[in-house]
């Protein structure tokens, strides 16, 4: 009786201690509803003392990246696709001084995820959820020429980048087809991600030969109308295909979850590093080191993984970074990563691992969707050598529940010690979140950052409003914004 009382008291105490003033029921309702139009109010965004933020262009549809020509004129790409299965038209836009835009080029193979101006032309990463990924060259007159085609990015994640290296080469990445190596019904949701209905045979492709343990997963079969139909699926194979112990999956390039290099004039990419889940943002430090942001696993699908963060990696050529069996350098088969309601943590899919994976440079919030990255080169902006990262924000509960909103801001990272600090975030007295939830005109979903050529300003690409109601993701067209952060004189920090 007394011990029972004690146990109950201990539970309540733990809840109070942990929860403080937060609601203890995960599933915060920050991202469920939006009533257009989007408000724009830079005063709703906090930036450090000595900086200001202002909108440069509004009304964009799913913008994902910004770059600058030799004169410093900004150009933005619109993706042409958003999770929530909304297909529009991928476009390259020149942003005019009055905030309007001029269409430079239109294309295909959405979503366009990144653009860089390099040696007189624009290079765009065509994500390829339709048609496969490509790297295309677009001249200033709008002529579009594919450089690399057939990249395996028809799935959950896409072809990303590109970044121009100090060696003159282009670097880009390809994300994995799946959440955690196994194609499941989470990729057949008409309201979220639905590629399985378009490309039923697609799956993850390793970059090198791998040997499987033969784990298989039984899930509902979305290919048939009968709700009770099931399918059994292994790793690195099409949906509905089982695997056996010691089965070898042949590696090939291009592959899933990897970073590639494209030498000047080349059309075949070279593998730089592999074993990533969704390597999204690529940037070189002032010292010439390549860094990549990685979107970590979600708690969804046939192999859900709990508590996987997002990461910043220093890319070492030739290294394997852990997918599908390690998360941020840690093995997934430990209690940390056990999803709620499951008896065991995730088990290894591979019979042997290529090598121990390295450790991340920085650990971002779980589900923060830490995406675009750029390095300050100093100049009037300051903060030389720090990485700036756009955090798109969580897509809870589709990707897994959270207690409070995660992301929806721009952070800076000291790559020397992994310390992360907010740089631009919505003002509020609560738990943060997108402006549409807070009832303000601040940031919605930052997806990319880029310093202009003289490093006097940091441009922030804000994808716009995307709500999540259960498994239903709803993006809103014409709500994207290009913001600019500039120093006002007195600066905090170096």
């Amino acid at each position: 009786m007394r011990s029972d009382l004690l146990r109950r008291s201990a539970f309540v105490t733990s809840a109070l201690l942990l929860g403080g003033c937060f609601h203890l029921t995960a599933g915060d309702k920050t991202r469920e509803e939006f009533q257009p139009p989007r408000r724009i109010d830079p005063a709703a965004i906090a930036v450090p003392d000595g900086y200001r933020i202002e909108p440069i262009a509004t009304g964009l549809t799913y913008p994902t990246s910004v770059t600058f020509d030799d004169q410093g004129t900004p150009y933005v790409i619109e993706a042409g696709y958003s999770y929530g299965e909304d297909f529009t038209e991928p476009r390259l836009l020149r942003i005019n001084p009055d905030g309007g835009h001029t269409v430079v080029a239109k294309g295909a193979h959405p979503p366009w995820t990144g653009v860089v101006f390099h040696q007189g032309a624009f290079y765009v990463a065509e994500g390829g959820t339709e048609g496969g990924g490509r790297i295309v060259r677009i001249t200033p007159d709008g002529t579009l020429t594919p450089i690399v085609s057939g990249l395996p990015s028809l799935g959950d994640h896409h072809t990303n980048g590109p970044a121009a290296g100090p060696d003159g080469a282009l670097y880009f990445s390809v994300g994995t087809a799946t959440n955690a190596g196994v194609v499941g019904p989470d990729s057949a949701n008409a309201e979220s991600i639905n590629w399985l209905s378009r490309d039923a045979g697609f799956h993850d492709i390793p970059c090198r030969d791998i040997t499987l343990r033969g784990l298989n997963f039984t899930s509902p079969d979305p290919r048939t109308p009968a709700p009770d139909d099931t399918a059994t699926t292994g790793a690195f194979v099409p949906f509905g295909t089982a695997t056996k112990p010691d089965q070898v999956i042949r590696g090939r390039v291009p592959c899933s979850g990897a970073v590639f290099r494209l030498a000047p004039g080349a059309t075949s990419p070279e593998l730089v590093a592999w074993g990533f889940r969704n390597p999204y943002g690529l940037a070189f430090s002032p010292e010439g080191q390549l860094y990549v942001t990685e979107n970590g696993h979600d708690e969804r699908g046939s192999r859900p993984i709990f508590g996987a963060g997002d990461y910043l990696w220093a890319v070492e050529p030739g290294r394997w970074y852990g997918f599908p069996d390690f998360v941020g350098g840690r093995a997934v088969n430990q209690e940390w990563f056990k999803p709620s309601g499951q008896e065991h943590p995730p088990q290894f899919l591979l019979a042997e691992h290529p090598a121990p994976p390295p450790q991340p440079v920085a650990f971002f919030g779980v589900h923060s969707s830490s995406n675009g990255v750029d390095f300050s080169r100093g100049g009037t902006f300051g903060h030389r050598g720090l990485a700036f990262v756009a955090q798109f924000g969580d897509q809870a509960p589709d990707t897994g529940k959270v207690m409070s909103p995660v992301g929806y801001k721009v952070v800076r990272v000291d790559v020397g010690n992994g310390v992360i600090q907010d740089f631009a975030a919505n003002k509020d007295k609560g738990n943060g979140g997108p402006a549409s939830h807070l009832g303000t005109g601040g940031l919605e979903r930052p997806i990319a950052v880029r310093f202009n050529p003289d490093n006097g300003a940091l441009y922030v690409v804000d994808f716009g409003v995307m709500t999540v109601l259960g498994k239903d993701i709803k993006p809103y067209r014409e709500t994207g914004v290009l913001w600019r952060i500039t120093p006002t004189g007195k600066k905090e920090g170096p």
Partner: protein
Amino acid sequence: MKATGCLLVLTTLAALGSSGCGPARRGVPFGPPLHLTERQKQGQVLFMRECNGCHPGGAGGLGPGIANKPLPGFAMRTQIRKGVGAMPAFTEQMLGDAEVDAIVDYLNALQETPGPL
């Protein structure tokens, strides 16, 4: 008697824990830069490696906010060592006692500064 004593301690802790209802410190750009001691800087680096994923910047995320509750140090150490709910227990192999102390010291520094705007 023993149980009653435990109950009293737990109730006191709960009251302390839930009394810190101010919003969590969210750092620059919401306030002045933190001025940390060397041990607090060590704690900050460890926090970023071990805690930031679930409590980004000390605020809530996957887990609850932890920079807005003036818990006694021993209560924070207990939570780190024992784990609660989905939070794993950090063994001595993962974090030494001095490292736990540094993290607690850093969290205390976060709590001594203003909250968000």
